């Protein structure tokens, strides 16, 4: 018993050291960048923290980044837990955004009250994402095509589809750019902090995280997904229908990302535009979601914490972009360093242990 406790303590210590080292390396890299771009490290760090957590407006922006990041990361983690690599979060976010916007325009004339309209719109987004995740699922089951490729290719297809809709049929002629008409007021996600500008998306995202936890640990389907992820051959011999599991995993991944896209439209942009999954030149949610899922070890709690840290990083580095001209993509470097460090420490331990 005592040995068990000390073993647990040791694991927790190693865990803490790993993440502290990763954080320190990322910070050091950040400091190098800030100096290279001619900024003052302490001033810049202060700016990052103040603009992401220190003011109500900044905190609201961090929350607004947190909801799509968490949902997108859950979409990746859910797939990875079952041995599926979903690189198509961006496409699924766009598909969800299209679903949300389309539903909002279709139901515009019905004068629905918001408690009905908003859930219907979000459902439209979920369905859009679900469909975008179903395609790689069915292609993998039917034709043994790797979902990695299909999800990547579908990203580009969805991107151009949004480009078409925002420039073509749904274009707002007064905006003069690639942006759709605004969605009706009743389909806009309510604000939680109206003055600071935070919408209710983060609550939905947190509910999804809790839901995924229970699904994974308390349901048969969740058990089957974990079994396939751990060892697909053993799972098949154990009588699990792996094809069915794939057709649960991929569309669910899509639905989660689709919800993220729907929330971005309904809560944040209130119209359909190209920058929904990260504006041009800025980091997109899909790439970040992969890293968050790895750092959070595909565990809903771990993913939630990692997504919160990344949300701070993203909204904080937005301010550095304005003050010292650090490109938005630099945040990818910090994140990649965190991931590589975490993998490095884990892998070295495994290699040593033999």
């Amino acid at each position, binding site marked *: 018993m005592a040995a068990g406790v000390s073993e647990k303590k040791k694991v927790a210590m190693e865990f803490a050291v790993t993440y502290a080292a990763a954080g320190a390396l990322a910070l050091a890299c950040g400091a190098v960048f800030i100096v*290279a771009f001619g900024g003052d490290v302490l001033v810049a760090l202060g700016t990052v923290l103040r603009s992401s957590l220190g003011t109500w407006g900044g905190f609201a922006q961090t929350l607004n980044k947190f909801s799509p990041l968490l949902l997108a990361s859950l979409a990746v983690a859910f797939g990875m837990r079952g041995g599926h690599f979903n690189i198509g979060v961006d496409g699924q976010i766009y598909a969800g955004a299209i679903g949300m916007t389309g539903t909002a325009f279709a139901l515009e004339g019905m004068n629905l009250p918001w408690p009905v309209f908003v859930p219907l719109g979000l459902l439209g987004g979920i369905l859009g994402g679900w469909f975008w995740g179903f395609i790689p699922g069915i292609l993998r089951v039917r034709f043994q095509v790797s979902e990695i*490729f299909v999800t990547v290719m*579908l990203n580009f297809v969805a991107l151009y589809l949004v480009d078409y809709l925002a420039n073509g049929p749904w274009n707002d002629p007064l905006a003069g750019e690639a942006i759709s008409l605004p969605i009706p007021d009743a389909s806009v996600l309510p604000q939680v902090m109206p003055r600071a500008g935070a919408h209710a998306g983060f609550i939905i995202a947190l509910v999804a995280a809790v839901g995924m936890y229970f699904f994974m640990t308390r349901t048969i389907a969740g058990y089957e997904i974990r079994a396939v992820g751990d060892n697909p051959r053993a799972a098949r011999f154990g009588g699990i229908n792996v094809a069915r599991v794939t057709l649960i995993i991929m569309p669910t991944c899509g639905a989660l990302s689709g919800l993220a896209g729907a929330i971005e439209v309904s809560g944040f942009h209130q119209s359909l535009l190209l920058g929904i999954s990260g504006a041009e030149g800025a980091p997109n949610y899909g790439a*970040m979601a992969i890293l968050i899922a790895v750092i959070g070890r595909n565990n809903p709690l771990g993913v939630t914490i990692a997504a919160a840290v990344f949300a701070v990083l993203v909204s904080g580095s937005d301010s550095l972009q304005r003050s010292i001209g650090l490109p938005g993509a630099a945040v990818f470097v910090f994140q990649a360093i965190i991931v590589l460090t975490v993998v490095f420490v884990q892998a070295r331990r495994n290699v040593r242990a033999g």
Partner: protein
Amino acid sequence: MSLLFDISLFQLTMLMMAPLIIACLGETIIERSGILNVGIEGVVTLGSVTGFLLTYYSGSAIIGCIVAALSGSVLTLLLAYFSVTLRANQIVIGLGIFVLGLGISPTIYRLAVGVVQSIPQVPTLKEIPIPLLGAIPFIGEIFFAQNGLVYMSYFLVAAVSFFLFKTPLGLRLRACGENPRAADTVGIDVARMRYGACAVGGLFLGVAGAYLPLVISGSFTDNIVNGRGWLALMLVIFGRWVPVWSFVGALLFAYVDAFQFKVNALPQFAKIIPPQFLLMLPYVFAMIVLVQVARGAESPRALTRPYDREARD
């Protein structure tokens, strides 16, 4: 119909083909050794920024290409370290390298160039028609009136094929990808072969990246690679890890890409087909092709599997 067989369309096809096949050959070498590099898109992006900047500052495209090749090699060696020495999950590490390349490239660019009014440009490589061959009507104009890097891509297809299938070293490399245990037993240093494959394959990936600003755009933009790395990864499967078949695939893809480019440039088509649908074409085509070729495609058997000398299997 004449549009489909236009000579300038075929010329553009060859132009678009070169970066795809160069990256694909690099990836083939890496995968033949038993390592899957899903970070290819990030490595190619790094190659395009270093290639562009060095060409811009030195005025020599050759220096640009060399530095791009070296930078690609360095980033791919990072993958080798994680997959060979640390035996980490190659897909996870590859994705990490993908994002690292995506992030570090615009950062390097901005550091070097700063915030400027007009974006820096390099002159794109000129065509060097080959004497005699280039004068052959049609065929010559398509294949032998191109820039130097296109010729290099022909040469590399032949060279990599010869290396993989006709040399002892190529055989050893393939053995590491098929059955590292057996390779080890006959005295092949699997780890060294895999490191070597990553170092050499990375050179190719870097040059493929440099090609984009040096030939196609003349400048660097954040999304310059635009999925070409992923397409190259797919072409490896399309060609079943055989360079010549990948070359055929690259021609096919480049043709579709060149076609959408040409059609989009014609105003009379814009009214019939929205340009975005044409832009989708290469990616949709890629998925359809994958469905056709993925069935029964046999990868090197040890692909993505780390090799542990001491493990019993």
